[in-house]
């Protein structure tokens, strides 16, 4: 008898991803779907997707979805969670969404200790709009709005949002991961699982930052993009547990 060792997760719809070849979003979607199934929380989960490339996440994740204006996902999630405290509410946001236009919302949601989980996908560019500078764009990195590279004096520094959120007293668990290698993908899944467990235990705000490759806007081959995360991006954004007061192992 043959044994099933790999299958489509219950909460991933049977649709073809629209994401570019080599993009990290499809991997992250799958990880979330797997975790929802394994923790048996998919039928009480509500996702707030962002504006950006993942705006169509509702075509892939088979859970209740409520679209938020650009940057406002955690505020919308706050409203949902406060009305339905026994549901699992999470946002899925890019770096522009959560670390630029939505900075105020996420800092205050974290500070209030909202029992929600944010999945923060950091690829260092505005992908959907064509590769403009994001708050997380690295120094010297070329984008369509930093044609000569990000310049400190003109563009400021890449923002350490996760570190900032760790300062907020209401945040419980914050970890930076990546999806550029099988090892990192497996670890990112563990982090997502832990973040949801923090919410299930009603402990406070949890966030998983995921460094993700954007071959299209980085103008790199996919295999070069994953190497770029290892060799360059993680030097500025090191993979680590930034804060863990959960007591969950």
């Amino acid at each position: 008898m043959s044994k099933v060792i790999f299958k489509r997760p219950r909460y991933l719809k049977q649709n073809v991803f629209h994401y570019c070849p080599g993009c990290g979003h499809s991997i992250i979607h799958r990880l979330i779907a797997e975790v929802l199934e394994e923790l048996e929380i998919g039928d009480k989960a509500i996702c707030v997707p962002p504006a950006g490339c993942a705006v169509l996440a509702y075509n892939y994740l088979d859970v209740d979805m409520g679209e938020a204006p650009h940057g406002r996902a955690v505020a919308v999630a706050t409203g949902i969670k406060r009305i339905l405290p026994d549901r699992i509410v999470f946002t899925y946001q890019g770096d522009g969404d959560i670390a630029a236009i939505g900075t105020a919302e996420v800092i205050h949601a974290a500070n209030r200790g909202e029992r929600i989980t944010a999945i923060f996908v950091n690829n260092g560019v505005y992908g959907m709009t064509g590769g403009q500078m994001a708050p997380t764009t690295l120094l010297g990195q070329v984008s369509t709005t930093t044609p000569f590279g990000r310049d400190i004096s003109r563009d400021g520094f890449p923002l350490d949002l996760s570190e900032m959120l760790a300062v907020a007293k209401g945040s419980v668990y914050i970890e930076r991961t990546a999806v550029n290698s099988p090892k990192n993908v497996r670890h990112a899944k563990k982090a997502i699982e832990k973040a949801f467990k923090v919410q299930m235990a009603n402990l406070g705000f949890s966030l998983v930052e995921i460094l993700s490759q954007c071959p299209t806007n980085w103008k790199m081959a996919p295999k070069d993009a994953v190497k770029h995360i290892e060799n360059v991006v993680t030097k500025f954004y090191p993979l680590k547990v930034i804060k863990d007061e959960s007591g969950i192992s």
Partner: protein
Amino acid sequence: MSEKVLMRGSHVIGEAAVRAGCRFYAGYPITPQNELTEYMAAAMARYQDRVFIQAESELAAINMVIGAAMAGARAMTSSSSPGVSLKQEGISYLAGQELPAVIVNLMRGGPGLGNIAPTQGDYFQATRGGGHGDYRTIVLAPASGQEIADLTIKAFEYADHYRTPVMLLGDGMMGQMMEPVVLPPPVDVSLLPQKPYILDGAKGRPARLIKSLYLDPAIMEEHNWKLYRKYQQIAREITQWEEFMVEDARLIVVAYGTCARIAKGAIRRLREMDIKVGMLRPITLFPFPSKVLRELSLKAKDFLVLELSTGQMLEDVRLAIEGRARTHFYGRPGGVVPTPDEVAKHINLLYHRQELNGGENE
């Protein structure tokens, strides 16, 4: 359960909202509506399952309201003019996503930071949609404490029934004045119709989606027409107004909210002098009572629009009258509130000038 109490307008909104079953309130401090936010902070705490959040911004507040509405709750936010400008993004999303919510705007002087005195300068913003996109917001304009209570209840009913944002539009005067009010009995929220669209986890049913993104222009167009048909239905079903001494009136004042109260005082004085003047008071600003104005314009030849602005509702009055009668305007923008005496003098002059020149256009 009905009881008569003496309360200030902002507290009446709060208490009526609580009685309407408002389960979620988010707000941000701004004068002259802080009394409402403060009332909600205390009132919501009386119930285990109700939520009050002082948000970090007006933007966050309206977006929290979006979330609460997605989760099925009756939800409200309140602010004053500059804060309501910030909320417009969320109001557009509520309209596009067809979610119910109540937004209170107690208007203050503007543009910009303006001042904190009563005005009606946000009429265009309130009635034309305010945010981006092709939509309208139901706008209710109370003119007394009792009407504040009744229309607050109605605001929640309309929002749920039509799945659309509803704005309660007043000003600092409406919020501060104290009048005896018969408070409505509390609504039993459990008896309200189920909302088959809410997000509460897809247990035992297909997953749901609430969105306003329609990338295909043909589908987006149909969504716009769908909203349009809804606004047409709203216009047929809920347009409200008050007629005051219009039967024999040669001159009809058109005014809403605070201005209508002032006009009423003026009209009573003028009637004692046998001057045939009356008033049409729109209670719903969207939908606007165009039909009754059209009918009145077949009889009365002069209409005076009175506003605490440089003339905004004036445009709707002119559109309704379509040149059948003369429209005049008297406005005090920027937070200046005219006295009934001032308004009476102006009406008197206008009335006699029109009588003397035999109704020729000015």
